[in-house]
């Protein structure tokens, strides 16, 4: 009867039988009580006690004092109790290492248990105990479990290797577990394969240079087979692993794509996104005219759209990735605008991302729809979202010219609402619209001026002041308006102060008679009463300009401004390519390369999209670099002057969006009256900079956007020279290092190999001399390379047709391609080679001069060069000295050109020649160089800038080798 009563009681007090009862005691005596219970003879009481202990543990209470008592409960046949004790052990073993040893015996015994569940549980738990003494005992059981007959045990053991590696990497390597793990990739059970891949990927992440996941067509095939059969999580690991593979040709690429496509219909969104990554990457290799290519493009859209109907957190990650995909391949989602429409109860982070993608997809075809939506959003509740929506209207106006008028009228409607933050945002974007379409929408200025008083944010105030200054001649009371700001000059933010200074100077230049007093007031405020150096310097420059030559001042200050670009925040193409390879990862959420933020992933190899290669023949290989790097010069012109540009600053371009561009304005319209002014008054100020830092030089180089290059004052001279290509001499042949012995006969049973590398007519060749110093004939030669930094691989077999008799020598030339598998080497230009003959296989490594990889079309456009130079962060610049070089700059330049190092511009400052050069590597990496040659000084200085700074050292070595030979 008792149990029936209890049943009734439980019905009534449902929670009484639950774990919450374990939390009732918090008194001091608790631990003692538990101790007594744990040592109880009654099995049930014991179990209850362990449960209480675990419950305390889960809420973060310290129950480590009970360690010995809990461990005593470990030897039991009751699986639940065993599991509970294991849970406890995992948590506290680290704090009680000596006690934890007590458990070792039981673990080792359990690893031999007849029940595979117990074997797996034991090995799994042991791996979680991060105590050295325990790990020692783990090796033997783990070895057995990795080869266990039961796949459940094997898959658990695979993960355990990763755990052990985390605790003691050396031990794992010494014990050969990595090899066993690699073998598991060929396991018959897909679950085991998936876990092996997962474990290897995790280990590989902490060892970027290890050759763990050696992907070749065979292993890829195994992975693709396992992909169909393993669990959803396993599929994610396998797909992420596949994404690291570079297919040999478009046929392989297509066949992988075909086998991955079904994953797009998986219910798990992580599987879908990983599949999208593989497809986006491998698609790059498919010819665009292939039917399959367009089929694939069509297949990508629906799953991406479906991701947006999932939970908001999933949507967010999906949207961040779609943002990348839309930039890389806008055609995929161009008809799907509506799915990005915002619902009022979307979380704010989803709303903002959707808005961003809407702008990216906006085109003439859908702009009406987009604008109607944006207007709707501008009346929402959420302030951040409303602001972004207003900005988005401005971006639409700038992006789709046909819509500009409609956008402006929408913005005006919004200004009429008088909602403070809406008005301020609208004014900021209208300023950009004025910049993009000058002299078109100025009729709205009056409306803007009405709202002057309500502006309290610096950005909006600065924008309004800019508008007033820029159109001072059309605003009757411009002086009054600006004067009203002047009253609280020192309370304004720097942005507003600078803008006010410039605007008043502009006003003065336009209406000199009425505003003399005003300009004097602002100049004195800026120069005498301010302790902000930027403001003071700008004040002084204006002052000097105005007092020396007002005509020149007018030309400079009121010069035409470059137009602003259409898309303001596009991700730079090389970064975009890298991010596409990281779809679905944290990198894709942050839009930063993993190297920028993932801890512990030192020296991550930058991933790149594969270049297109024809199947079978490798004749296309010289073009490969073009395909991969081709996108960079295309997009680069949109990245012109940055904030640091002094001339730009004078023209008050500092408010412009960071990336501005446009064709240089016609020079004919600009009569520079103030030549002397810049030459005389300011050259002392500017001259030093020009000679000094290359960055400044390049900065001035960008100035044609704002200033004609025909200035012939000292400043102009520098600029002019920069664009004068000088006399580049006739190109000479590429530098070929002398042959050296790579493999001495002693080490290779009589075979001696010496050789060098050469680049002839765009083909990289390995030139070898094989000498037989043995007594017997050698035949059956073959050669193979290990993976290397630039994907060098033999493009054909080693042509040794006749047997090599004793004391015979043969010269062979082996063409190389750059489409082989890539792995970063140290040093970067290290190449590991295996040569086989009828006797044995021999290994040696050699270093190739990186100049072999400099491609023939490595000459950058000057504009692109300037922009790229500025765009590469200064951290990536490295400087080297070349000693004892007695060439003049022209000779050096022509010599370098022979090795595909192209001089783009030359400039002479104070007897020092500066050569600006560009180099393109076969994998599309650009290296920019500045070589300084001082007449009469045999030491050259070279500065190298490259997005992949690792190559700088090698490139420098090439310079040295080329120039000295």
């Amino acid at each position, binding site marked *: 009867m008792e149990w029936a009563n209890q049943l009734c009681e439980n019905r009534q007090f449902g929670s009484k039988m639950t774990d919450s009862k374990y939390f009732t005691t918090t008194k001091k005596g608790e631990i003692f009580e538990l101790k007594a219970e744990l040592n109880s003879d009654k099995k049930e009481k014991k179990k209850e006690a362990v449960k209480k202990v675990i419950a305390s543990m889960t809420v973060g209470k310290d129950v480590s004092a009970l360690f010995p008592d809990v461990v005593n409960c470990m030897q039991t046949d009751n699986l*639940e109790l065993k*599991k509970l004790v294991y849970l406890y052990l995992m948590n506290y073993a680290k704090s009680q290492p000596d006690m934890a040893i007590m458990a070792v015996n039981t673990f080792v015994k359990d690893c031999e248990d007849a029940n595979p569940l117990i074997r797996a549980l034991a090995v799994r738990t042991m791996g979680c105990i991060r105590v050295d003494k325990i790990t020692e005992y783990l090796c033997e059981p783990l070895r057995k479990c990795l080869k266990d007959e039961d796949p459940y045990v094997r898959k658990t053991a695979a993960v355990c290797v990763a755990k052990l590696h985390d605790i003691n990497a050396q031990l794992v390597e010494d014990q050969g577990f990595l090899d066993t793990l690699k073998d598991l990739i060929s396991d018959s059970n897909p679950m085991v394969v998936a876990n092996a891949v997962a474990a290897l990927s995790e280990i590989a992440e902490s060892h970027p240079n290890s050759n763990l996941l050696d992907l070749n067509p065979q292993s890829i095939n195994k992975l693709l087979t396992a992909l169909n059969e393993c669990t959803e999580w396993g599929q994610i690991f396998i797909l992420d692993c596949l994404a690291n593979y570079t297919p040999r040709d478009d046929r392989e690429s297509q066949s992988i794509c075909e086998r991955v496509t079904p994953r797009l219909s998986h*219910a798990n969104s992580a599987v879908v996104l990983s599949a999208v990554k593989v497809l986006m990457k491998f698609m790059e290799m498919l010819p665009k005219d292939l039917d399959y290519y367009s089929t694939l493009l069509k297949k990508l859209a629906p799953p991406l759209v479906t991701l947006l109907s999932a*939970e*908001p*957190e*999933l949507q967010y990650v999906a949207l961040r990735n779609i943002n990348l995909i839309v930039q890389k391949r806008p055609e995929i989602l161009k008809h799907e605008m509506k799915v990005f429409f915002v619902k009022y*109860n979307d979380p704010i982070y989803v709303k903002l991302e959707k808005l961003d993608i809407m702008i990216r997809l906006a085109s003439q075809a859908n702009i009406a729809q987009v604008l109607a939506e944006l207007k709707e959003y501008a009346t929402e509740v959420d302030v951040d979202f409303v602001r972004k929506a207003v900005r988005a209207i401005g971006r639409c106006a700038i992006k789709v010219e046909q819509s500009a008028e409609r956008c402006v009228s929408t913005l005006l409607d919004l200004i009429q609402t008088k909602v403070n933050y809406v008005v301020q945002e609208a004014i900021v974007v209208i300023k950009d619209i004025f910049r993009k379409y000058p002299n078109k929408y100025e009729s709205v200025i009056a409306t803007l001026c009405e709202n002057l008083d309500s502006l309290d944010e610096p950005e909006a105030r600065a924008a309004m002041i800019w508008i007033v200054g820029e159109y001072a001649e059309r605003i009757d009371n411009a002086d009054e308006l600006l004067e009203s700001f002047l009253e609280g000059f020192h309370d304004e933010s720097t942005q507003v102060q600078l803008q006010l200074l410039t605007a008043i100077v502009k006003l003065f230049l336009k209406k000199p008679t009425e505003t003399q007093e005003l300009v004097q007031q602002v100049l004195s405020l800026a120069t005498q009463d301010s302790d902000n150096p930027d403001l003071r310097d700008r004040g002084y420059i204006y002052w000097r300009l105005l007092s020396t030559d007002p005509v020149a001042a007018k030309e400079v200050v009121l010069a035409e401004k470059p137009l602003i670009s259409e898309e303001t925040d596009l991700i730079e193409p090389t970064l975009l390519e890298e991010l596409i390879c990281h779809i679905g990862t944290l990198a894709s959420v942050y839009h930063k390369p993993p190297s920028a933020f993932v801890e512990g992933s030192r020296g991550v190899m930058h991933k790149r999209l594969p270049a297109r290669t024809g199947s079978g023949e490798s004749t296309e290989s010289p073009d490969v670099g073009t395909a991969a790097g081709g996108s960079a010069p295309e997009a680069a012109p949109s990245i012109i002057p940055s904030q640091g540009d002094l001339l730009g600053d004078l023209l008050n371009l500092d408010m412009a969006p960071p990336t501005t561009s446009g064709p240089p304005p016609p020079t004919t319209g600009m009569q520079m009256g103030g030549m002397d002014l810049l030459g005389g008054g300011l050259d002392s100020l500017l001259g030093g900079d020009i000679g000094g830092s290359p960055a400044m030089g390049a900065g001035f180089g960008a100035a044609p956007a704002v200033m004609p290059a025909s200035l012939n004052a000292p400043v102009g001279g520098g600029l002019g020279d920069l664009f004068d290509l000088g006399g580049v001499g006739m190109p000479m042949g590429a530098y070929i290092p002398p042959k050296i012995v790579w493999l001495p006969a002693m080490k290779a049973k009589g075979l001696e190999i010496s050789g060098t590398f050469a680049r002839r007519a765009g083909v990289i060749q390995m030139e070898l001399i094989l000498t037989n110093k043995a007594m017997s004939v050698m035949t059956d030669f073959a050669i193979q390379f290990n993976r290397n930094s630039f994907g060098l691989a033999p493009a054909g077999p080693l042509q040794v047709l006749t047997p090599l008799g004793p004391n015979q020598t043969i010269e062979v030339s082996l063409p190389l391609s750059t489409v082989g598998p890539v792995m970063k080497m140290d040093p970067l230009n290290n190449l590991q080679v295996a040569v086989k003959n009828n006797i044995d296989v021999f290994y040696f490594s050699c270093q190739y001069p990186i100049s072999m990889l400099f491609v023939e079309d490595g000459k950058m456009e000057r504009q692109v060069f300037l922009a790229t130079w500025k765009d590469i962060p200064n951290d990536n610049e490295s400087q080297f000295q070349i000693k004892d070089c007695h060439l003049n700059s022209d000779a050096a330049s022509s010599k370098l050109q022979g090795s595909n190092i192209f001089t783009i511009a030359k400039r002479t400052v104070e007897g020092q020649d500066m050569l600006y050069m560009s180099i393109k590597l076969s994998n599309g990496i650009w290296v920019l160089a500045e070589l300084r040659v001082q007449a009469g000084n045999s030491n050259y200085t070279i500065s190298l800038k490259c997005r992949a700074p690792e190559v700088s050292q090698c490139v420098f070595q090439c310079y040295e080798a080329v120039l000295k030979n």
Partner: protein
Amino acid sequence: MINSLFLINPSGEIFLEKHWKSVVSRSVCDYFLEAKEKALEPEDVPPVIHTPHHYLISIYRDKLFFLSVIQTEVPPLFVIEFLHRVAEMIQDYFGECSETVVKDHMVMVYELLEEMLDNGFPLATESNVLKEMIRPPTILRSVVNTLTGTSNVGDTLLTGQLSTIPWRRAGVRYTNNEAYFDVVEEIDAILDQSGTTVFAEIQGVVEACVKLSGMPDLTLSFMNPRLLDDVSFHPCVRYKLWESERVLSFIPPDGNFTLMTYHVNAQNLVAIPVYVKQSISFFECGSDGRLDVTVGPKQTMGKTVEGVMVTVHLPKTILSINLTATQGSYTYDNGTKLLVWDIGKLNPQKLPNLRGSLSLQAGAPKPEENPSLNIDLKIQQLAISGLKVNRLDMFGEKYKPFKGVKYITKAGKFQVRT
């Protein structure tokens, strides 16, 4: 992989922590709590947060935050999917997902979490498999356990776990063999002020409850499968056959599962079952406004629309409201400014209407924002996309199963702008 999991209640209290690798101090959650403080609504906390040494990936579900800590580059979707599985697992085991339920079953939740991940790698997340390993609680079982000393943890290795069909265990036996399918469609739509569709799509799902003995091999075919724009399947569905013949061929898991989800976003195919006539206006001067909402049936294919409910977030400056409903009843929470009008069944002869006055707080300006109306509805025995199951065939077993298909249409995110 996933290092740790923290469960956090809306007031920011951590009530469960689980670590699969070395222990991460719970102070790491401070970064999250800071972000939570900043967010206006709990839904607005960003799902991925970067701290100096960790990444915090969180979901907000059933009024709880599931926060995971990771240290290396891990696909965030993988983590988010997993967190949702944890929430589903709790729901599945204990009938609801709430702080109380988790606290009541703390040890079992902890054991389950241990079973779901190993070293941060998913181990067993299929409900079928988990339930074999750790049996869900029932009152009767806990009583029996207490009396007999047997435990909740299974001690036989599951055959299903590593068979070629990991989702189904062998040796299933039923006296009544039955297979039921529910086709559930949700309409996501945005209608503008004039009632024009701005955007509409249908999210469909086929939920299955299959209790069949042995190893049945099922084939489900639709009358009009080409309707579907995008489909995602349970791993059991043979994708190749779908590609070539547009039929669903599968060996089902035992019990309840989601067979497929689909998506119809061709706008002309999406019928909008109701129309809403509304006006929410505020007078330029004075502190009053009016609200007038009428709901009526539109394209219902002759079925009755039930469970109609209108939800409005009124502007913050509203002081009080005074409304009359011709059908159903309304509730208004002055704290959250949430107005909920529960209408029930739509009667085409007598359209329900809610109207009355809104009064603003004294001196408050005319509200800027236009509140959107959220509509809830249900239509039995109709899949609004027109999708129809043609037939279900069973191979591999000899018995005759009971078969059934049910259709239902609901409103998903169905919004009307004002």
